[in-house]
């Protein structure tokens, strides 16, 4: 119950942080040389993308856990596999040369460790059914943030490159990811069986397999047919980086609060449904 009281305070802090980040982005940040003021969309576009990817990552981890925790053998096996992946990503980051463009060894290692750490953290803090609730929550909020990315992207591209959309690696992968998770949410909505979580988890795993394939295939496609590539990768002004990170922190706090509210709503809804089902069972059969 202490959590409930903390919510308004955290909400206020987040609002302050978001306002501060907005001020930094609009006023303090230096104007970019070639693109002008429109470049400031970057401070909203990129943090939203990173947040969306983080949320979908959490969904993927939750989906695997839900499927695996029903069976103790599979559970142990997956624990060891995740540990192996963590170690392998650290080693691979520094051993595999050359890496695809725009990817640093340290980020590969950090991502590997972070995802594996997330796996064990979620395992410790959430029971199996609650993991499923978390999966729904992160999918929904992830779709919201992904929508922001897909709307701000073209709004940035149009004044800078004169086109609303291009089939480059990042935009197309993001679109496919968005489509997959919308289909995930539709499956959740339209499926009436008690095994919906299992089916949805299977779909989430398919999606997670698909996205690297999309990224890879379009990356190769683009190198065959050179097109205007969306900016990013390469060096960034330290002041801009600082403001970008502030905005990311602000959006992460915001996403955290939204997820928390949605999570509470989900748990409450499940309790109400259970109670209603129980009531229906215990009702006297007078109407028969």
């Amino acid at each position, binding site marked *: 119950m202490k959590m409930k009281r903390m919510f308004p305070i955290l909400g206020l802090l987040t609002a302050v942080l978001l306002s501060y980040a*907005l001020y930094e982005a609009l006023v303090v940040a230096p104007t970019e040389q070639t693109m002008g*003021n*429109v470049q*400031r*969309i970057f401070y*909203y*576009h990129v943090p*939203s993308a990173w947040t969306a990817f983080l949320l979908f990552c959490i969904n993927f981890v939750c989906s695997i856990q839900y499927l695996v925790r029903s069976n103790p053998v599979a559970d142990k096996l997956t624990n060891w596999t995740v540990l192996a992946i963590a170690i392998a990503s650290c080693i691979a980051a520094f051993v595999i040369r050359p890496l695809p463009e725009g990817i640093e060894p340290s980020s590969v290692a950090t991502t590997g460790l972070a995802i594996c750490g997330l796996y064990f953290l979620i395992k410790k803090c959430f029971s199996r059914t609650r993991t499923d609730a978390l999966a729904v929550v992160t999918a929904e*909020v992830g779709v*919201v943030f992904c*929508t*922001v990315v897909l*709307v*701000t992207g073209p*709004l*940035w591209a*149009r*004044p800078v490159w004169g086109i609303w959309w291009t089939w480059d690696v990042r935009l197309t992968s993001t679109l496919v990811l968005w489509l997959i998770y919308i289909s995930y949410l539709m499956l959740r909505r339209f499926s009436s069986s008690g095994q919906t979580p299992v089916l949805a988890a299977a779909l989430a795993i398919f999606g997670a397999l698909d996205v690297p394939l999309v990224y890879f295939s379009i990356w190769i496609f683009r190198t065959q047919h050179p097109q205007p590539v969306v900016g990013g990768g390469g060096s960034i002004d330290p002041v801009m980086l600082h403001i970008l990170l502030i905005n990311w922190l602000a959006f992460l706090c*915001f996403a955290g609060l*939204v997820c928390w*509210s*949605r999570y509470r*709503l989900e748990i*409450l*809804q499940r309790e*109400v449904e259970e*109670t*209603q089902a129980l*009531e229906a069972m215990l009702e006297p059969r007078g109407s028969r």
Partner: protein
Amino acid sequence: MNFLYAAYAATWIIHIVYLSTLVRRYQRLSREIDELKKK
């Protein structure tokens, strides 16, 4: 410049729309809880 404001506005509109759906679902749920409590 207009694109900049449009992008920022669009971001917040999307978030606000989602939050309002959450609020509506909360209200519907608390109504259902009240009905259950009455029984």
